[in-house]
């Protein structure tokens, strides 16, 4: 007998994601769950013209917040204009490695943040408090380059949220968190903000550690309504150059593409992917 997948209803479209840089990245991290790299064209860069119709639809649907990710969003030549357009409608978060952020860009972002009634958050990923921890995961020399980006944002008065994954040893322990927070204070962040993300055993990460095991699955499970509503897919959708996907995690799976427009994607989703297990078991949310 084949097992069926529990359904996640879309309770409300609160969070709208954009794969604004596609799967194109200036770095090639060994734990990237969508294997972003300088040459991965699975999902292409999105222009302001590509993004705008979705923003219009999102405004009509009452979306609460916008997230931009990639790949590396600051590879996108129109990223500042795209952020500006979204910031007119609601709060914006941008997930970046920080390497490409120059003081001029930071100053423009600061001006946008000051002019909007809504919050603008920059979220920078780094994997440890030193090069010895970070560089094996994110690439030779990246620790110093990411740190430079964090310092530029701090100088511009934009206090980034710093994200580390569980690949960063000790990130989950309170001693590990305290060490990371002390490190961020030392870098010049007077109000350090830290988010620890679970690993997703997809993409490049399957080669660094392992793929999902057969038991890591929600197939055949029944979720209580409050369990289903706690999943991020009950309140988000992801737009890429290929259309609307259920969430930011499953964009490499053709079955997770739901529609061409947001309105058509406001339906339940069958939780048949192993990564759905991580979201459920670890309470993962890609939101800040």
């Amino acid at each position: 007998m084949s097992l069926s997948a529990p359904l996640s209803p879309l309770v409300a479209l609160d969070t709208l994601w954009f794969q604004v840089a596609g799967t194109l990245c200036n770095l090639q991290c060994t734990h990237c769950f969508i294997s972003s790299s300088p040459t991965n064209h699975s999902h292409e860069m999105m222009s302001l013209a590509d993004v705008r119709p979705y923003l219009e639809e999102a405004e009509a649907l009452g979306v609460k917040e916008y997230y931009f990710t990639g790949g590396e969003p600051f590879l996108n030549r129109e990223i500042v204009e795209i952020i500006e357009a979204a910031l007119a409608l609601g709060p914006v978060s941008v997930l970046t490695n920080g390497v490409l952020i120059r003081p001029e860009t930071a100053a423009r972002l600061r001006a946008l943040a000051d002019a909007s009634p809504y919050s603008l958050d920059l979220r920078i990923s780094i994997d440890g408090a030193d090069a010895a921890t970070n560089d094996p995961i994110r690439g030779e020399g990246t620790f110093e380059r990411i740190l430079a980006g964090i310092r530029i944002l701090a100088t511009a008065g934009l206090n980034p949220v710093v994200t580390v994954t569980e690949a960063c040893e000790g990130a989950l322990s309170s001693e590990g968190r305290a060490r990371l927070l002390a490190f961020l204070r030392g870098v010049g962040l007077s109000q350090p903000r830290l988010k620890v993300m679970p690993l997703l055993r997809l993409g490049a990460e399957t080669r660094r550690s392992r793929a999902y095991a057969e038991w890591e699955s929600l197939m055949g499970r029944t979720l209580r309504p409050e369990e289903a509503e706690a999943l991020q897919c009950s309140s988000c959708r992801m737009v890429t150059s290929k259309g609307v996907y259920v969430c930011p995690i499953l964009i490499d799976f053709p079955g997770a593409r739901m529609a061409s427009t947001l309105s058509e994607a406001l339906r339940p989703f069958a939780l048949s992917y192993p990564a759905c297990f991580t979201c459920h078991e670890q309470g993962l949310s890609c939101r800040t």
Partner: protein
Amino acid sequence: MPDLSRRTEDHGAFARVAFLGGIYSNYLALTEALRVARARGVDAIYALGDFGAFGPHPDRTLQILREARVPAIQGNYEESLSTDADDCHCGYTDPRDNHFAQLSYDYTRRRTSTEHKAWMGTLPGHVRLTVAGRRVLLCHGSPRKINEFLWESTTPAPFIRKLLRDAEADVVVCTHTGLHWSRFIEAGRGVVNAGVLGRPANDGRTNVWLTVIEDHSGDLAVEHVPVDYDHERLACEMQEEGLPEEFVETVLTGYWTTCLEILPAKERTRGRH
């Protein structure tokens, strides 16, 4: 939407109403707030939930509220205390935020009488009023979720439009975040966060806030009103009760020291920590 699992009462029309957000056991500020509200000639005062937390002697607040017959709705604290839940369901995600929230809840749960806890279970989840011809819906977090945080910088106009449509209301009055603000998408249609009496607004001032809405020549007007109280006495009592020094510092300085990670970028930047 609104959350149909919660009971809603309809209380009719009023000309001028004061709203008390989370009191967090700050009975000294509550006493002052009732005086300030009455001096403004309000014809009703409503408490929006979270009577306990953070401060000392939770039963003192409950006794004052009940003796004054202040109509009230449930917050997440009342829901948790009346059902004997193990935590406050405040909705934090960061471990440090959760650590301090648990200290608050454990103290409040231990020090709240069984009789007061039972009373909390009788309160409605929502109340509907009419002010200046506008349909006003009172809730704790949001109309759809008791512990949703509606912050000024993350509650945008398009979302408010949807929230009001779904809630069949013109104005939503809420609390839960600890910071007062209001945003109107057109005349007489918007969200009002009443702020809280429990702790200062992370702005370096020691006063707390209540909110008044009124019929102003047929239009609905909102005013966030500062409330001064004996914060030094509160700080002493908190120390005597062994509550965390971090909480005492907030009362004395006006800046939040805990439950900071939930703050959006704009609100976080305004504080010191």
